[in-house]
């Protein structure tokens, strides 16, 4: 069932990007083999590193879906970063407001619902602006990313600050009933949720009538009229769904990894998710593969610093090259 030709093509493309990156490394006087060696050994070569790849993968899967689902309707959601922050904020608020004796079977769903609500709310304004024809969602979601960061800062430094933490900007630690448990290392149940979300998205988009219709319309108002599907409502539904998914990314990060809400807890997951979605041409299974690849590279960035003395932002180059080659290959077919 796996498209072998596509797999071979993807491997070739990845190799192409790696080769280009090697040239750059050589030009800087670094040994590419050493660099790749430390990148892979620190991630795939030991149990901890491998686990950490999954830790990064979990939010990426959510934020990639946050881009891919609206993309089926032709919408460009660049607001994953902001939506995940608002999701985290609302989840944190719920966990702090609902008392500390909550059992897990209740607490965790509460955080998830709150997280999805937060992300969806943050996507609502761009969605409405777009559906009313006021402003394209690309710009509005982008601008709101910056606002979201400050909103979280405002609450964490202000009303939600932990009074017992000596004035450090962070909330109280969440009660155990809300924390998402881990399997091994820091790999947590968010992985299960993310995989379920992927499967659900694939199901809805590819096998339901509604999914078929939104793909067929692709944002074209005339086509939507013909199908009898109200475009305005579809826009709001898919963008808010995307926001909700991104909200889960943020929720997972604070409920499983951080244990409390702090400012700046996201490592660019929103933008990386955008990258992954495009690398994967918005297809759920490919999102899993590309997400894994990007997670490996992103996780490997630290080892570049420790072993090679390169700034960890160097991996951005590799990721950009990957996206370039994939986009170039697909050309006009990228959809």
């Amino acid at each position: 069932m796996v498209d072998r030709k596509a797999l071979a093509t993807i491997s070739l493309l990845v190799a192409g990007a790696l080769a280009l990156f090697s040239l750059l490394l050589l030009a800087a006087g670094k040994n590419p083999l050493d660099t790749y060696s430390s990148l892979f050994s620190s991630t795939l070569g030991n149990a901890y590193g491998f686990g950490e790849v999954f830790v990064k993968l979990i939010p990426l899967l959510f934020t990639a879906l946050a881009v891919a689902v609206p993309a089926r309707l032709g919408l460009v959601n660049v607001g994953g970063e902001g939506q995940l922050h608002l999701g985290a904020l609302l989840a944190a608020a719920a966990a702090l407001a609902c008392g500390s004796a909550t059992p897990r079977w209740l607490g965790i769903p509460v955080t998830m619902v709150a997280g999805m609500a937060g992300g969806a709310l943050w996507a609502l304004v761009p969605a409405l602006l777009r559906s009313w024809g006021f402003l394209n969602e690309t710009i509005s979601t982008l601008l709101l990313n910056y606002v979201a960061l400050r909103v979280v800062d405002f609450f964490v430094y202000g009303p939600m600050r932990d009074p017992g933490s000596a004035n450090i900007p962070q909330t109280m630690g969440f009660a155990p009933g809300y924390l998402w448990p881990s399997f091994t290392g820091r790999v947590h149940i968010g992985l299960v949720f993310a995989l379920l979300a992927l499967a659900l998205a694939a199901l809805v988009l590819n096998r339901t009538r509604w999914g078929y219709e939104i793909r067929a319309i692709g944002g074209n108002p005339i086509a939507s009229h013909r199908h009898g599907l109200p475009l305005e409502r579809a826009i709001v539904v898919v963008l808010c769904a995307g926001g909700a998914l991104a909200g889960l990314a943020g929720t997972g990060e604070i409920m499983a990894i951080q244990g409390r809400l702090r400012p700046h807890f996201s490592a660019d997951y929103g933008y990386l998710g955008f990258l992954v979605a495009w690398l994967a041409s918005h297809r759920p299974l490919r999102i899993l593969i590309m997400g894994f690849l990007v997670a490996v590279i992103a996780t490997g960035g630290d080892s570049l610093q420790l072993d090679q003395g390169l700034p960890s932002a160097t991996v951005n180059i590799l990721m950009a090259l990957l996206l370039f080659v994939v986009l170039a290959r697909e050309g006009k077919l990228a959809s």
Partner: protein
Amino acid sequence: MHPDFVQGWLAGAILASTPLFYAALGETLVEKAGLINLGVEGTMLMGASVSFAVASISGSLPLGLAAGMLAGGLFNLLLGPLIVVRGANQLASGLALMFLGQGLSAFYGKAFVGTSIDGLAPLPIPFLSNLPWVGQILFRQDLLVYLMLPCAFAVWFLLSRTAWGLNLRAVGEDRLVAYAAGSNTGLLRHQALFLGGLLAGLAGAHLSLAIAHTWTEGLTAGRGFIAVALVIFAAWRPLRVLPGALLFGGTLALQIQLQARGAQVSPFLLDMLPYLVTLLVLVLLRKSSRGRMPEGLKEVFESSR
């Protein structure tokens, strides 16, 4: 002698708006050709880092500025084969360019972190700078600030009064018709990318040489994205880019002036202002901008999947 609040604010607004202006002006050229580069952020970073590096090493500011501009132009051109020749999705390509710019500038810019040079100093204009009240605001800025108005006119002239400009706009409106009329659409679009990149590179150079006097990773802090928003705000008209940049620069400067004068407002709320104001104005001005979007660009937004 000390500027009052309004003076200080306006002078700060003008300075802060300069990099936004140049980047948005460059992006206007690109979008008039029916293309969109979301990665202006990356281009600005390249301009900022290269200009700082070259100016530091050579000791020559003009050389540094030129190098920054050239770096920006060439960097933008990277999009050419991708979006013009291959027709790849422009929004994703732009973001890839942003990542590339972030990574590249961090990569070789590392050697320059922690160093500083004098860079572009303010150039008070004789006589004018002593005018009461306005003198301090308008005429004690650096060279690139003074060149904003001339550049805006130059680009306006280029686009509306030269054959090249008209051809470019035709390409942006309807590529097939332009092609049929004999235009080399591919070349024109590449040229637009290059020119746009020159200006974005200059914007970055202003940040590192005139404002910060140093280089750090990620110096632009999202200004490239703001520039893209400003193009829409200006309804793709070069002459409107300046007021747009001033508005945004004004909110940036307001926030810091309020803090410096002891205003009792949360710094976080103040920080949100620039983005919220931009969003609000974009929504309010939608009628006047919607009709002006180049047709070719509409395609990019409405059919991207």
